């Protein structure tokens, strides 16, 4: 059960021999992986396994050895939902201003045109956040902030969407709301989702394919098989360094 055993015929991401070092430490070694076009591919593994690092390498945020290729067919747009902890909420940006930052050239303090405002309100409406348009992001709950990050990433619709632990730390209701949004998007649009998740139940619900990572690829295949591997010996949550 390796990446090459059952490589998808039509990959959107193809990674060959990826290596990432942080100082003297090898964070990822010899990663070869293909992500099939369409559907949801989940990346699981213990803390410190290099999952977020793998996403960062795909996004081009850090130097790496080996090769990562993206095979575009549509609008070539890459959406990214970072971890909530990566958002500094100390600036009193409203939800609308946050969305506007990436959509208008005019400084947000000069105001948002009626046309752009209407579009962003529709976007917020689609995620159930319309009433929070003028709420500072610091005033949003974890689930609301996560949905805002998600809406920001899927407008305009990306061809490839990368998500980094989007439901980590959320309560059941917030997690379900988020999963509904994602499932709806997957149903209605042709896009590929590559998602880091710590939640085996969520992976079971959403994933078409799963990769278990622990600095190298441990298993890659159908959700049932890989999650079986997880249950057999790999706990997703405990930190590295187990015996």
């Amino acid at each position, binding site marked *: 059960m390796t990446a090459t055993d059952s490589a998808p015929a039509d990959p959107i991401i193809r990674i060959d021999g990826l290596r990432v070092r942080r100082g003297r430490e090898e964070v990822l070694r010899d990663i070869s992986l293909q992500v099939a076009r369409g559907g949801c591919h989940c990346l699981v593994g213990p803390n410190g396994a290099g999952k977020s690092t793998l996403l960062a390498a795909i*996004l081009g*945020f850090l130097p790496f050895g080996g090769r990562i290729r993206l095979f575009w067919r549509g609008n070539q747009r*890459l959406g*990214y939902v*970072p971890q909530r902890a*990566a*958002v*500094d*909420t*100390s*600036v*009193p*940006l*409203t939800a609308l*201003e*946050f969305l*506007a*930052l*990436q959509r*208008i*050239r005019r*400084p*947000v*303090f000069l*105001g948002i045109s009626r046309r752009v405002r209407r579009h962003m309100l529709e976007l917020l409406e689609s995620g159930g956040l319309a009433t929070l348009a*003028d709420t*500072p992001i610091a005033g949003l709950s974890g689930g609301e902030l996560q949905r805002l990050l998600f809406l*920001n990433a899927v407008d305009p619709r990306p061809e490839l969407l990368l998500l980094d632990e989007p439901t980590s730390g959320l309560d059941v209701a917030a997690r379900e709301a988020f999963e509904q949004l994602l499932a709806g998007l997957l149903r209605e649009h042709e896009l590929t989702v590559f998602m880091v998740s710590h939640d085996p139940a969520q992976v079971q619900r959403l994933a078409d394919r799963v990769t278990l990572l622990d600095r190298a690829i441990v298993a890659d295949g159908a959700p049932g098989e890989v999650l079986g591997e997880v249950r057999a010996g790999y706990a997703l949550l405990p930190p590295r360094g187990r015996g």
Partner: protein
Amino acid sequence: MQGFYDWFAAAARAGMLPASFEYAFVIRGILAVLLVAPLLGGLSHLVVARRLAFFSSALGHAALTGLTLGLLMGEPINSAYGGIVGFCLLTAVAMVFVRRHSSLPPDTLIGVFLSLTLGLGICLLVAVTKRFNIHQIESVMFGSLLTVTDRDLLLLLLASLGIGAVLIRHYNELLLDSTVPTLGRLAGNRAVFLEYLFVVLLTMAIVVSLKIIGALLVESLVVVPAAAARNLSWSVRSYLLISILVALTACLLGLFLSTQWLVPTGGAIVLSIAALFFVTMAVGALRAR
């Protein structure tokens, strides 16, 4: 400009304006704070968002060293801009460079630079005081209206326009880079460029404001307005506008106090802005109830 000052003096003598408007240095002071307050107050929310408060303090101290270097190289005491700009820019760029290439916490590294520049400045100050009156040096350390010239005002105006234009061009990128850096990078923003760009703009703003607020107190005007505004703001627009309003109120109040009680302008402005911060904190706490 003399005709402009004469008009105010005549109006003051006729009782149409307060008596202090008879003096050209007071008019220059008011013009200076009308330029300094929007410049530093406007920058302050980005300084706070980008966690550069301590960095700004180090730059203020570097300005003192830059002044002594400029004087030792033969610049006039009233406009040692070459030494101040050169040394502050060098220090700012070096701090960012070292911070980007070190795993030590940023405040630790800035502390190292602050010690270095201050130590160097104090050593050079001994040499400088042999040639210049210490009171002239004090005016740069603590700010003084008496030393502001028409040339300083022109420089302040041009710097404000230039810095404002660049900030407007890159504002959304800077804010996104401060809030969610990864999304900024994905959107094609050059994080390294933005980091250096902002510290250069901040350095220039601090340097041209030194004569009003003083090298040792300039940090207050690039940090406290945003801190006060944060207590009351509900959006980025309100954050910026309240920051500028707080800076403007504090500067005018400080100017008034300094001319009334003959205390250093910088000190009076800092006391005013600190008072405003506590007022906004109290108002914010009352509103939150």
